[in-house]
C-alpha cells in the first residue's frame, strides 16, 4: 500500500484490515496510481535537474564563444564597424577606434560619416546608405581625431538573418595610410630626381653661353676704358676745337654715357657672376653619378650652395649669416644631405616670411662646428617659432601648417629619416614662439657604416 493512501485512510479512520473486501481492488489501483505518479514526478524532477545543468553548460559555452568572437573582433588588425543603414554605428572594434584616434564609446552611436575626411563628405556619399547585394570595397579618406588624414579601404557587406532579411551593414577597413605615405614619398623622391637630372642638363646648357658672356663683358670693360682714355687724350690734343667738341659731346650726351657705360658693364658682369654662382651651386648639389653611396662631403660648401639655390625664397625676407667653422669633410650620402639642408633652409625662410610683417626682415644663421667625433650644423631663423601644441608632430609625415602649394608636409619627416635612419645622426630643434627656431643636425665625421659594423 502506498504510504500516502495509508495516511489518507488513517485520517478518515478506516483501517485497511477492516475495509470492506470490495474496496480492496479499488485501493490497490489507487495505490498503484499513487506509485505511478511518484514515479512520474521523480522522472520529471530528474529531467528538470538534468536540463538546468545542460542549460548552464550551454550558457557557459555560449559566453565563451561570445568572448572569443569579441576577442577576434577586438584584436583583429583591421578595423571593423557595424552600422545601421542610416549610418549610425552600433558597434566597432578597437582597431577601428585606434585608426580614428578615438575610444569605442566615443564612436558608437555616431554616424560614420562624421569620421570621413571633410574633403570627401558629400562626394557621392549618400547619408542613407542602402543595403548591398554583395560585398563592395570603397577607398575612403578618414579624419583622425588630431586632424590628420587616414586612408583606408573599406569593404562593406550586409548582414542578414536566416530569412534573408537585412538588418545592418558591416565594414572591414584596412588602414593604408603608411603605404600611402610611402607611395607619396617615393613619387616625391622620383620627382626630385627628375628635376635634379633636368637641372644638371640645364646647367650644362648654360655654362657655354656663360663662358662667352663673361669673356665678352670683360672685353667690353677693358675696351671701353681704353677707348675713353684714348678719347680724352685725343681731345686734349685739339685745344682749338674745344668749344665745338663740347657742343658735339653735349648733343651725344657723352657725360651720361661715359658715366653709365662702365656701370652698365659692371652690373652685367655682376649678373653673369651671379648666374655662374647659381649654376655652380647646382653642380655641387647634383651629384647624380655618386648617389646611393657615401662619399666625403664638404658640408660648408654644400651649405653655401644650398643657400645660393634657395636665394629666391630668402632674399625678400631675411639676410643670411654664415658662421662656418673649420670642420672636416664627413662621410655621407651627398644628395640626401643637400636635400635635408635645403628643406631646413627653406623652412627657415618660410618661418621668417610669416613674421616679416610683424617683425620686419629677419635673419637666417647657418653655422657649423666640430664637436668631438661629430659635426654640428645649426640652421636658425628669427621667424615665428613653432607653437607648443604642434611641436611633437613636426616630424610626422604629411604634417604641415603651410597652405596648399607651399609645403607637402614631408620636408621634416624626410629630413628626420635621412639624418636619423640613414646617417645615424640626430635632428632636433629649439624653438620659442615669436623669437625663432634653431634646427640642430649632428653627424658623425666617420659616417654611418662604422656604427653599423659596431
Amino acid at each position, binding site marked *: 500500500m502506498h504510504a500516502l493512501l495509508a495516511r489518507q485512510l488513517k485520517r478518515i479512520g478506516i483501517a485497511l484490515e477492516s475495509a470492506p473486501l470490495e474496496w480492496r481492488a479499488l485501493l490497490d489501483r489507487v495505490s498503484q496510481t499513487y506509485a505511478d505518479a511518484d514515479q512520474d514526478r521523480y522522472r520529471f524532477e530528474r529531467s528538470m535537474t538534468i536540463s538546468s545543468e545542460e542549460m548552464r553548460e550551454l550558457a557557459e559555452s555560449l559566453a565563451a564563444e561570445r568572448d572569443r568572437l569579441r576577442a577576434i573582433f577586438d584584436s583583429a588588425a583591421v578595423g571593423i564597424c557595424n552600422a545601421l543603414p542610416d549610418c549610425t554605428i552600433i558597434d566597432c572594434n578597437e582597431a577601428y577606434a585606434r585608426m580614428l584616434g578615438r575610444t569605442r564609446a566615443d564612436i558608437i552611436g555616431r554616424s560614420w560619416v562624421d569620421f570621413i575626411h571633410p574633403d570627401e563628405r558629400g562626394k557621392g556619399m549618400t547619408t542613407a546608405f542602402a543595403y548591398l547585394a554583395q560585398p563592395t570595397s570603397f577607398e575612403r579618406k578618414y579624419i583622425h581625431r588630431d586632424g590628420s588624414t587616414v586612408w583606408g579601404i573599406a569593404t562593406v557587406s550586409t548582414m542578414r538573418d536566416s530569412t534573408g532579411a537585412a538588418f545592418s551593414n558591416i565594414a572591414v577597413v584596412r588602414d593604408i595610410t603608411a603605404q600611402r605615405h610611402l607611395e607619396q614619398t617615393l613619387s616625391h623622391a622620383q620627382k626630385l630626381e627628375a628635376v635634379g637630372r633636368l637641372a*644638371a642638363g640645364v*646647367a*650644362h*646648357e648654360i*655654362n*657655354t*653661353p*656663360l*663662358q*662667352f*658672356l*663673361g*669673356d*665678352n663683358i*670683360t*672685353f667690353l670693360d*677693358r675696351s671701353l676704358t681704353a677707348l675713353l682714355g684714348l678719347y680724352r687724350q685725343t681731345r686734349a690734343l685739339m685745344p682749338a676745337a674745344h668749344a665745338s667738341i663740347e657742343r658735339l659731346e653735349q648733343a651725344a650726351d657723352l657725360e651720361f654715357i661715359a658715366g653709365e657705360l662702365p656701370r652698365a658693364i659692371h652690373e652685367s658682369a655682376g649678373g*653673369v657672376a651671379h648666374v*655662374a654662382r647659381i649654376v*655652380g651651386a*647646382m*653642380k*655641387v648639389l*647634383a*651629384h*647624380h*653619378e*655618386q648617389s*646611393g*653611396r*657615401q*662619399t*666625403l662631403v*664638404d658640408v660648408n*660648401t654644400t651649405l653655401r650652395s644650398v643657400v645660393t639655390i634657395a636665394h629666391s625664397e630668402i632674399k625678400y625676407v631675411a639676410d643670411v649669416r654664415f658662421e662656418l667653422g673649420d670642420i672636416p*669633410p664627413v*662621410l655621407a650620402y651627398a644628395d640626401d644631405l643637400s636635400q635635408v639642408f635645403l628643406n631646413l633652409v627653406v623652412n627657415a625662410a618660410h618661418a621668417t616670411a610669416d613674421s616679416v610683417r610683424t617683425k620686419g626682415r629677419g635673419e637666417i644663421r647657418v653655422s657649423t662646428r666640430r664637436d668631438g667625433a661629430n659635426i654640428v650644423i645649426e640652421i636658425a631663423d628669427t621667424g615665428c617659432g613653432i607653437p607648443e601644441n604642434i611641436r611633437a608632430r613636426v616630424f610626422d609625415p604629411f604634417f604641415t601648417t603651410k597652405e596648399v602649394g607651399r609645403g607637402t608636409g614631408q620636408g621634416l619627416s624626410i629630413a628626420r629619416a635621412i639624418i636619423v635612419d640613414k646617417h645615424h645622426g640626430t635632428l632636433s630643434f629649439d624653438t620659442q614662439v615669436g623669437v625663432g627656431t634653431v634646427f640642430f643636425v649632428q653627424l658623425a665625421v666617420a659616417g654611418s*657604416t662604422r656604427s653599423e659594423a659596431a
Partner: protein
Amino acid sequence: MTIAVLFVDDEPRLLDAIQRQMRAVRFEWDASAAVGGPAALAMMEQKNFDCVISDMRMPQMDGAEFLSRVRTRWPHVSRILLSGQSDVGAAVRAAPLVHQFLSKPCASDVLLSTVAMTRRALAPLEEGTRARLACLGVLPSAPATCDKLRELLSVDEPNLDDVSYVITNDVAMSVKSMQLVSSAFFGACGVASVDAAVRTLGASLLRTLAPVAFGSDGWRADVAQLASDATLEERTGWLLQTMLGIGTNENPKLLARGLLGLWGVSLR
C-alpha cells in the same frame, strides 16, 4: 717667346669671346681657335702649339678622341679640358688623356694661369724629358695592386678603409686620385690627403676610374714597389726616374714637381 695655345670648341661665339680676351695678352700668348676636333687637328699639322684647350662634348669628334689623337701625334703638347658638363663621370673617363681639368665658365686669368703653371712646371727639365712627361697619361701600378683594388671594388658596398689603404700605398693611384679631386670638377676643394681624395671620389667613381687610369701599363711589377715611408712627392720622383731609365740625369724632385705641376696636383 710667346706660348702658342689652341682653343677647340663647337661654339664659335665662345671661341670669338676667348680670342677677344686673348688680344690683351697677345705679347705673351699666341692664341688660335678651331671649331671642332678635325679643324683643330688640321691646324696643328700647320703650326706648332704648346697647349690645347678643348671642350668635351662636340659633334663628329668628341674631346676625348681629339685629345687622344693629340697625345699620339704631338705628345709634348699640354692637354687641358674645358668642359661645361657637370657630369663628373665623363671627366673621370677622360682622366688618362688630360693634364688639367677646367670647368665652364672659367675666368680667362684662371685659364691662362693654369696653362702657365703647366709650362712652368716643366721648364727646369730637358726638352726630351718634358715630352716624355707630357706623354704620360697615367703612371704604372704594380699588377698585384691593380688586382687587389679590382677585387675590393667588385663588391656591392666596398670597404673604403681597405680601398684607401691600397691606393695610399700605390704612387700612381695616389697621384691620379689627388689630380681628379684637386680639379675644377670637385670644386677644387683641395683635399689634404690621399685618404680624403679616395673618400671624396667614392666607390662608384673609383670603379669608373680604375679600368681607365689604374694599370701596370706594361711596366714590370717591381717598378711601382717603393718605400712608403717617403713623401708622395719623393716616391713620385723615384718612380719617374725609374721609368725614364738610366739615360736621364734629371733630379727626381724636379721630375716629380714637373709631373705634379703639369697635372695640377697640389700636395700639402
